[in-house]
């Protein structure tokens, strides 16, 4: 009997939303306890800042260039390598409960398995991407995934309670709500027990209940929150009064200061802020960031924090079940997310081709199984989500698969140093109706350097360079600073030297998301 793995992901969650990472707004005692008993990573970096490429990195252990999912809407090939399959081959029972998103949601032809399973009313995945059991959900109750079908069958009146994620033109919705008319905010009267966060915890507990005590298992519990829309159950809104929420440190309240910071970055930053360029589908097409108000930032942060609290409590219920089954000493718990969220930083919301901490610094906590005897620690060296897959196989007593491009996560900084951690890569490619944007980024120690390839708004000369130690908010772009020219040159050379093998042929976009 080996170690079991409870892998918990959220969607679009910032590093600073957890108490253990210094967050002051959301109360997250369950995750904070895991951090205190385990390893807390202070610089976990995604290899993409949007869902499908990032999630594909998690399951394949490969960079987006290699697995081929270069933007949302590109399905991960069904025969792509999968760490879940490697664990299943090693005898593990495997499940993914929650948001998968290796395949597009918008699927009128019903071509993708994730949607087919929900419509067919089955959780039996028969090894699809290495899983025995898939029980899927996303943000709300529309679509064909299991949660949407459950709501339709049991509580159809709740479908319209959620925020309408897309508008009548199928663009990400810009319509406002709440007290401040903030985009992607709605007061949702759904009872808490019907909301997807608690529903998924129930489903995970039920799946664990199907297992024998001696089974080895890998459960990927994937919460769709705190990704927008920010529509937690109305019954929970009293937890945090948005009027009491301090403005984030990364939100320059002075408009001229905010715009000066944006103007020092490549031009698409300011163009998006002014509403003259929306380069990616994930941002509401008809929302102009320059209209964002202080109160909207407060209300969004309050609702986001409430969603984080609900996740923490739901995870707590699953851990109680793990303990009740007698597995507590043998379960590794890993908690992370796929990418971050602006949440007001630079006067922006959502995400896009912007490689800064808001989107790139992720919560990552590994609480090793107590039976493994690994001491609690804090790792400051950069690690990547690409390192998760080999971590899972290592926990399972397996050698990481040859197709994995990362390394098993370090257990402390000494381990990180001896095994060569300290550098991560992140990439962005998007092509949306004639607008192409292409970024390549290296995080090396305290420096983050981004190169822009030629595209719709960039000529290939632009870039960003930040010193995270002296400029943690990334307000000062050093790209054109002569004092950093040599460092910039070295980082750019290293960035290109480290580019992974590309997927051939290039995969096609098959849906907006």
């Amino acid at each position: 009997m080996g170690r079991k793995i409870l892998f918990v992901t959220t969607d679009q969650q910032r590093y600073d939303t957890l108490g253990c990472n210094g967050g002051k707004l959301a109360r997250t005692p369950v995750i904070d306890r895991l951090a205190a008993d385990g390893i807390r990573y202070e610089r976990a970096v995604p290899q993409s800042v949007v869902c499908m490429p990032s999630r594909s990195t998690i399951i394949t252990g490969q960079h987006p260039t290699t697995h081929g999912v270069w933007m949302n809407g590109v399905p991960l090939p069904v025969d792509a390598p999968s760490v879940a399959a490697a664990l299943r081959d090693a005898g593990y029972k495997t499940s993914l409960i929650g948001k998968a998103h290796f395949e597009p949601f918008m699927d009128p032809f019903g071509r993708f398995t994730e949607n087919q399973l929900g419509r067919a009313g089955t959780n039996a995945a028969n090894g699809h991407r290495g899983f025995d059991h898939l029980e899927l959900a996303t943000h709300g109750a529309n679509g064909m995934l299991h949660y949407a079908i459950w709501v339709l069958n049991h509580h159809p009146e709740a479908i319209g309670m959620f925020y309408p994620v897309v508008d009548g033109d199928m663009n990400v919705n810009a319509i406002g709500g709440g007290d401040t008319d903030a985009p992607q905010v709605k007061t949702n009267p759904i009872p808490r027990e019907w909301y997807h966060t608690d529903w998924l915890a129930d489903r995970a507990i039920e799946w664990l209940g199907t297992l024998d005590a001696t089974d080895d298992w890998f459960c990927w519990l994937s919460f769709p929150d705190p990704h927008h829309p920010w529509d937690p159950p109305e019954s929970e809104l009293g937890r945090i009064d948005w009027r009491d929420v301090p403005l984030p440190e990364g939100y320059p309240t002075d408009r001229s200061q905010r715009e000066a910071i944006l103007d020092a970055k490549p031009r698409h930053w300011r163009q998006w802020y002014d509403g003259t360029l929306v380069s990616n589908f994930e941002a509401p097409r008809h929302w102009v960031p320059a209209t964002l108000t202080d109160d909207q930032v407060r209300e969004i942060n309050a609702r986001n924090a409430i969603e984080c609290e609900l996740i923490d409590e739901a995870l707590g219920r699953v851990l109680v079940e793990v303990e009740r089954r007698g597995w507590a000493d043998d379960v590794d718990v890993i908690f992370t997310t796929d990418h971050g969220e602006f949440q007001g930083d630079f006067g922006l919301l959502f995400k896009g081709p912007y490689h800064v901490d808001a989107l790139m610094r992720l919560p990552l906590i590994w609480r090793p199984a107590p039976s493994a005897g690994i001491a609690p620690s804090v790792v400051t060296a950069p690690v990547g989500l690409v390192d998760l897959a080999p971590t899972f196989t290592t926990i399972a007593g397996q050698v990481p698969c040859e197709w994995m491009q990362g390394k098993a996560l370090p257990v402390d900084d000494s381990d990180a140093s001896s095994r060569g951690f300290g550098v991560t890569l992140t990439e962005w490619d998007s092509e949306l109706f004639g607008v192409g944007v292409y970024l390549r980024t290296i995080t090396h120690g305290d420096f983050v350097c981004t190169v822009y390839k030629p595209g719709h708004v960039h000529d290939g000369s632009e870039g960003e360079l930040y010193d995270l130690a002296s400029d943690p908010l990334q307000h000062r772009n050093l790209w054109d600073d002569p004092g950093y020219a040599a460092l910039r040159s070295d980082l750019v050379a290293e960035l290109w030297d480290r580019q992974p093998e590309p997927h051939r042929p290039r995969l096609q976009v098959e849906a907006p998301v």
Partner: protein
Amino acid sequence: MASIRREVVIERSADDVWALVGDPATIHTWFPGMTDATVNGSTRLITTATGLPLPETILVNDPIQRRFQYRLDLPVVRYHRGTIDVIELDRARCLVVYSTDCEPDPMALVVGGATGNALQALKRQLEADTA
């Protein structure tokens, strides 16, 4: 207006490919996710694997140019043209181009995103027939 284009080279003659592509009642035999196609004059009703009915108007079915063009008639689609061109490369090979022009923009990917996959399925089917 959004415009997307997918293409594939098929190792079959343009006439062989056109025999399938130019027959509007057989699209569901090569387009994954379509379960039925019923043609009545210039109208065609597609049924998808999700049970969604897609009513269409056939605009062009030209065996000389080997061009097939149709319009999707759905309230959520303000403008749509789906165009399939079969272009001879040599006697045994042709290029098939499937274009989708659509407004609102995201619908181009929602309804046209599957066309690249469909062309691959068409290629597999026709080249398997040769083997």
